């Protein structure tokens, strides 16, 4: 029966690939720097999902420890990135990624 089908590691890895691709597309298409940051979060989450799926498959807890470190780095990255964004948008309101070709504030 279809109800007895149990999702395998492959399903999780495929979902993670789709999520990563959507995030990559968003980074390339969107011009609002805030939304680009959100798309980077999507890509990090896709990698986290595949880490956990493979940790369960291999029976190795190290994969879940790696996700913990990815979370810490993602938090630090968002803090620094949004700080840069706040100081840029304060001097140039409404700047898009195309306007930020030079880093000079």
């Amino acid at each position: 029966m279809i109800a007895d089908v149990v999702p395998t590691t492959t399903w999780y890895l495929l979902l993670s690939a789709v999520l990563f691709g959507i995030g990559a597309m968003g980074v390339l298409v969107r011009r609002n720097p805030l939304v680009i940051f959100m798309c980077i979060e999507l890509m990090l989450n896709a990698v986290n999902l595949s880490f956990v799926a493979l940790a369960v498959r291999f029976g190795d807890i190290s994969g879940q420890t790696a996700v913990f470190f990815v979370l810490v780095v993602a938090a630090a990255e968002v803090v620094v990135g949004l700080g840069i964004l706040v100081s840029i948008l304060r001097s140039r309101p409404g700047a898009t990624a195309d306007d930020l070709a030079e880093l000079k504030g």
Partner: protein
Amino acid sequence: MELLVFVLASAMVIAGAGGVILSRNPVHAALGLVLTLFGVAVHFVALEAHFLAAVQVIVYAGAIVVLFLFVIMLLGVDRAENIEVEPLKVQRPLAIVIGVGTIGIVAAAVLRVRSTLAQGEPLQSDGDSNIRQLAADLFSDRVFAFELTSVLLIVAVAGTVVMTRRQRASREDDRS
């Protein structure tokens, strides 16, 4: 039952991700991000990574998305982005090609190793054994990296404070 959970959580993840990249308003994109993060947390619960599911909800949905919304409100950039205007004509088709290509390559690799993927001993998942295993790994083998994350967080916070306060300090210097 597992199938139903997987399908529903995957639908949440994909719908949220689509909302992030398609919505014109940054606030709606942030709400789509919340939907995706909750879907990933449901997947973590289904994979019996209970600690990471809790951390996912607390840190990502609780802290990071609130930070995003806070910056959106602070800067007033919640105006809708005009998606019709396109400075670079080739950008959007090229992005779709690259995104679909990435999905295709990774999916092909996953499907190729499907039958040869090693199968280890299942992790213990009764009671609090997940968090015990995680703690034993984190505080024995990875304790140096764990200490380095505290340095990383301090540097990130201090750097952000310095970066965002500089303007006001220079203005006061001009006045005095």
